[in-house]
């Protein structure tokens, strides 16, 4: 059953990949016959494959639930894949609302990156610690993830808007920031590629090192150490010696992973620029040629409107109810709680700026991008970097 569950997830990953290609194909096909109403054949195939992939991933979720005896939303891998599942679900709904295949070209790669990224963490089925043993685990985490996924759809829409609206004929602040977003996505890809490569090579290097409290500890690197631990001493023979040594207060191993991701991302990005000789945004621009800006703007705004209440319910209200039961208080300024509040405040500001200050169109699209960065920060950094009660991921 465990392997069945894993295979279903893998299948959905492949299906999303194929669907992305078909969605991209449906755009190209449209060039000649602009007048045609509604999605074409390619798009119909693409959405069909997406739905099959969604069902397959749902199968992964259910089988894993059965095996574990609890909903698989309790660590980095499980949460990330569920986030991707919700994102695809939200996309399917929005697809039928607005009939825009283009949305798939931008959403599915984000979902793919999320699944790949999450799969880099431990995939073991872990037992639940006492604090997590509650039905609120499913209620709180799934609702919060769904809310974030719907909000994430506004990121996809915002990205489309920016790719279309930003003038690529000359470099500007706008092209720079758009490229920064693309670079961020590429670095995630870099992280996945580097991690997979070294894990296939079975790279393991052990270090003795001294932590900030002066204690000697052992640490195992699974990537060649660029940033080595404090007073680190390489124990495994024939492995890469660290280039730079970090002070004890910095987690050198995690930093090393970040450095590798940035490095590989930079290489991929530079190669792309060298070969294609265009910005990533400029290469994508023809893809979005036929979409109406105000429709994309509407989709983005709609996603925020639908997602905001769901997010508030899941990530704040249900969270507070559970915290009152498990941790004796509904609010305790734990970093995850604070970042959920920050997300809430950000989208509240988004809505006020839009409703009262008329921040439509491009401004709104930039905000949607920033919102997604905050959501991702809460998912990744708050789990891995900032220590708190929610750091179950490990």
């Amino acid at each position: 059953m465990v392997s069945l569950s894993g295979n279903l997830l893998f299948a959905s990953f492949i299906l999303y990949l194929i669907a992305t290609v078909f969605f991209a194909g449906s755009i190209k096909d449209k060039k000649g016959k602009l007048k045609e109403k509604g999605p074409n054949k390619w798009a119909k195939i693409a959405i069909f494959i997406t739905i099959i992939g969604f069902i397959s991933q749902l199968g992964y979720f259910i089988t894993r639930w059965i095996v574990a005896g609890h909903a698989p939303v309790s660590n980095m891998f499980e949460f990330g894949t569920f986030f991707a599942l919700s994102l695809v679900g939200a996309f399917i709904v929005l697809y039928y609302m607005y009939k825009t295949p283009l949305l798939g070209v931008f959403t599915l790669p984000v979902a793919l990156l999320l699944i790949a990224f999450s799969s880099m963490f431990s995939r073991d089925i872990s037992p639940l610690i006492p604090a997590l043993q509650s039905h609120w685990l499913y209620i709180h985490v799934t609702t919060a993830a769904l809310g974030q996924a719907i909000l994430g759809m506004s990121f996809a829409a915002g990205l489309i808007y920016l790719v279309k609206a930003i003038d690529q004929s000359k470099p500007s602040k706008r092209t720079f920031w758009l490229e920064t977003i693309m670079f961020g996505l590429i670095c995630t890809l870099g992280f996945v590629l580097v991690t997979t490569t070294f894990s296939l090579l079975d790279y393991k290097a052990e270090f003795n090192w001294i932590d900030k409290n002066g204690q000697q500890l052992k640490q195992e690197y699974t990537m060649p150490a660029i940033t080595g631990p404090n007073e680190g001493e390489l124990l495994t023979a024939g492995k890469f010696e660290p280039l730079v040594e970090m002070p004890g207060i910095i987690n050198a191993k995690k930093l090393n992973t970040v450095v590798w991701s940035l490095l590989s991302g930079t290489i991929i990005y530079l190669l792309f620029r060298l070969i294609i000789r265009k910005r990533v945004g400029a290469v994508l621009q023809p893809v979005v040629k036929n979409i109406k800006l105000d429709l994309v703007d509407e989709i983005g705004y709609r996603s925020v409107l639908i997602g905001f209440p769901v997010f508030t319910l899941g990530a704040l209200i249900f969270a507070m109810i559970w915290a009152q039961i498990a941790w004796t208080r509904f609010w305790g300024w734990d970093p995850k709680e604070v970042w959920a509040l920050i997300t809430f405040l950000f989208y509240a500001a988004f809505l006020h700026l839009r409703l009262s200050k008329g921040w439509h169109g491009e401004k709104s699209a930039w905000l949607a991008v920033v919102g997604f960065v905050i959501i991702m920060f809460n998912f990744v950094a708050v789990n891995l970097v900032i220590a708190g009660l929610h750091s179950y991921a490990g």
Partner: protein
Amino acid sequence: MKHVKCECGHVNPHGTILCEACGRVLQESEKEKQLVDMRYEGSARRSQTYNKTIVDKVWNFFSSVKVGVWLIVITLIASALGTIFPQEMYIPPIMPAAEYYEDQYGWIGKLYYDLGFHNLYSSWWYLVLIASIGISLVICSLDRVIPLWRALKAQRVSRHEGFLKRQRVFGVSEASNLDESYEKVKERLKAKRYNIREEDGNILAEKGRFSRWGPYVNHIGLIIFLIGGMLRFVPGMYIDEVLWVREGETKVIPETDGQYYLKNNKFILEVYDKDKDNQAFSEAIEEKGMVAKNYQSNVTLYKKKGETVAGQPPELEKVKDYPIKVNEPLKFEGYALYQVSYKLDELSKMTFTLGNKKSNESFGEVKIDLNDPKDRYDLGNGYAVEVVSYFPDFEFDDSGEPVTKSKVPNNPAFVFKMITPDKKEGEISFVAIQQTIEPFGDNEYKMNFSGIDTKNVSSITVRKDLTLWLIAFGGLIFMIGVAQGSYWNHRRIWIRRVNDEVWIAGHTNKNWHGLKREIQAVLEDTGIKEPEDQMQKEENKE
């Protein structure tokens, strides 16, 4: 106060931009615009009309959405700052906070501490920010909701041409056999759950007006929530106490006026077993080493019976037995008892034997309850041990005197007086763990350590929070309001006959795509042309 009378006869409050009844543009500056600004229906808002007194100025400051958004953004950034390093309540109590931050994070940590960011969320300026958001919520809402309500109530079916023409969705079409089309349109609008009002052959179809109140309802919810949060500072509303109870011990529950007692029968700690528990967990357990499965205190709750007589132990009546687990607190009378922490194997009893140093002969055993030692233990035949001094958590102070750090028997030490038939005055001996000092020279007798008993201790949080219902109520109202405002749209379609033409205008507070689709469906095959989105037209021109 001046009023503005519109040509249609309706009297509008001073400052109105669009006539509440017919929509005619009343302010000159608005007349030049291609599309009217439909926010708040062009009603007269206090903040836009008056700016003389201090009250006006304060009102105008807080009623501005710009100010509101700035407050939100500043709060957002401040909140983020508080997560850079752990807040003081989350640092381990190994050293004072002043040292901890510098020790752990270097000069940045020191700066963090010096700026007071280690207690950011209870700092005065953070509370001022939250309070300002609260004030802004109230004033923003009042400034808008009253005029908006007036305007929506006063609106007439027939709208001024200038109003219709300046709507985002607008179209004119010549129509033949209009009556038939009209009926069709009306029927379809009804099927789409529009409320239809008719006047002189003009139609106003409206639905979802209540969604316009969503923002104000959710703001009320937030205000209630914030008031609930403030109530915590009212004495008696909020109790947060920690109770450490040893196994077998009965303790009064703090803040219950001595009415309730808790006995800890047993503390249980379980960890996952890779062989017995779900096989799917085995790899994870192997990797992590040990994973906790359950923290549980089996307790008995007692209520005091009758009046306590001084010096007498209170008479207790059992209320119930309950296993307190994480996620399963024991609740009674508005109180909740939570399993929050534990200490395994705390020393509870120590056993010594009194013996002769030379002959190794033993004269009996002394078992000392470390939480309640007796003054004297008689061993019979003239042998006895007196406890002269007891240090449960012993250390030597700066002057070399033995002192105790706490009442918890972490490191017990005793001064014994050993009384034997041959030494009737007794010999004094200082006994600590792994250590015996004989302050008055060589003794003949000795207290030999022979064993310890240990007990587990449960840490129970005693919580009473009378603000919860108000906070929950505020949350509920907020959710209702936010759903009301997000999931419904206020749509209006005006159809007006002007000579032989039909003028159609549409407005929605959001989701224009949906409105256009609805109009399209309503007008299909009626001979009436679909209105255009004037905003899109402009965009295409560019």
